[in-house]
């Protein structure tokens, strides 16, 4: 049987032939991740923007802002709206029309982290308890698996790149300065590292063909000091303790590379 046909008809057997020897069909080792690159500031019309490429997976994010009057005396979480669009452009599996479920999942994942990570005081304005409310619009340009990592990374990179204008109040009213100098401060930074479990073997940064074979997916969040900041695993097969500890060790190993991409 020809190789391509075999891959198509028996994807699991095809993958296992490689994974038994400790490598993957695309040439990576089981613990190797794809080349990840972060670029910031390519969209002139957004207040901040970033593009992340993990292998072929490409995400683009832009920040826009408006002024709001938050209710409540002290704001604990930064007011940030997140919108993730998975258009049919990025993969044939998304159809035109209704927003796919995955995009809501990614939206929530990003929102719950960035709201907590961004310092709300850095968005406060000096007058009348007003505040900047940011909205992050994330567009997928290509979907080749491991969207969780790419989405959170692109959101953080875009927030780091965001420069807000100052608002000056005068007798005629308020006006916005043309120069943008104000940065968005973080309490801390975290990076996500995702794993797929295929036949109880852990693979780092699974691509779309591997994701289709995964029994479960684990995402581990690591901070700059290399400590463990969270774990997310929704459904899938039961994962043993050993497997999770292997994952967290690998995540701590990979984190510095991602932080260096974010800080550039």
């Amino acid at each position, binding site marked *: 049987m020809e190789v391509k046909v075999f891959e198509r008809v028996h994807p699991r057997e095809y993958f296992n032939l490689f994974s038994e020897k400790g490598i993957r069909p695309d040439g990576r080792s089981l613990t190797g991740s794809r080349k990840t690159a972060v*670029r910031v500031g390519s*969209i002139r019309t957004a207040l901040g923007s970033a593009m992340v490429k993990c292998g*072929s997976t490409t995400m683009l994010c832009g920040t826009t802002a408006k002024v709001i009057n938050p209710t409540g005396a002290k704001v604990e979480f930064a007011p940030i709206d997140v919108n993730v669009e998975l*258009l049919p452009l990025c993969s044939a599996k998304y159809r035109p029309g209704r927003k796919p479920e995955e995009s809501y999942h990614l939206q929530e994942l990003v929102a719950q982290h960035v709201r907590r990570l961004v310092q709300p005081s850095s968005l406060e304005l000096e007058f009348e308890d007003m505040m900047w409310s940011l909205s992050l619009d994330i567009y997928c*340009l*290509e979907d*080749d698996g491991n969207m969780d990592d790419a989405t959170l990374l692109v959101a953080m990179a875009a927030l780091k790149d965001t420069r807000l204008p100052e608002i000056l109040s005068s007798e005629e009213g308020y006006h916005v300065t043309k120069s943008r100098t104000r940065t968005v401060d973080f309490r801390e930074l975290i990076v996500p590292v995702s794993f797929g479990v295929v036949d109880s073997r852990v693979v780092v940064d699974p691509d*779309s063909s591997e994701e289709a074979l995964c029994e479960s997916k684990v995402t581990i969040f690591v901070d700059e000091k290399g400590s463990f900041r969270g774990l997310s695993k929704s459904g899938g097969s039961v994962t043993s303790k050993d497997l999770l500890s292997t994952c967290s060790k690998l995540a701590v190993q990979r984190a510095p590379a991602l932080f260096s991409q974010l800080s550039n």
Partner: protein
Amino acid sequence: MGLREFDYGPLVSVERGTEVTTRERKRQWNELRPLFMRTRMVSHAAGSSYLEAENSKVICSVNGPLANTGGRTEAIERAKISCYISRTKFCGLEDDELEKRATTEYEGIVCRALESIVRVEQYPKSTIEVHVLVIEDDGSTLSAAITCACLALADAKIELRELMACCSVVNANGQLLLDPTLDEEKEASGSVLVSYLATSGKVSTVFQTGQLAYDEMAQAVELTISGAREIAVLVRNCLRQRESKDRGL
């Protein structure tokens, strides 16, 4: 599929904070902005392309030909082309302007322009889907979308009669301006868009809005054709480069 290099070209290299518009930087009234185009941006799609004219950035991918699934089957001898245009929220247009630009109408224009070059009779009972995303809008994005879609169709190896290039002209304060920026589009009293068939030298779509005197109209069409001719050369070069790259591998 191996790893691809991170080579998104000028998408990542545009400097920010350049407040000067192109005409202020002494672009002639009949001069195009520098164009960058590339095919194969989305490796999983049948064909895809990216087009950038300074700050206008458009990405397009083509799916298909796909089998028609149910629905009305009014044209079984020919392929149906469906086109979807979306814009990013941060593309530079305010919300009210976004509404003013009837996307559905634009989708129709792109569809009909493409129908004139695709050999639809070669793909019976099928649909060719064209998805366009306007990443950043600094004017002339409809014409950019059409050129970009044509490039993506060629990349998808869909049979085309010939290549098409599209260009637009506005009349701002009595002066015709080729390849207008967003500011120029806003103050324009009329605009003309022409899609030009590169080999036969014919015109397949003329789309005019606003007011133009008859003489101006004729002049504007001529101007757009001269612009489209330049773009057509770039489209052809882009495809040729891709072809030679593929052979080299």
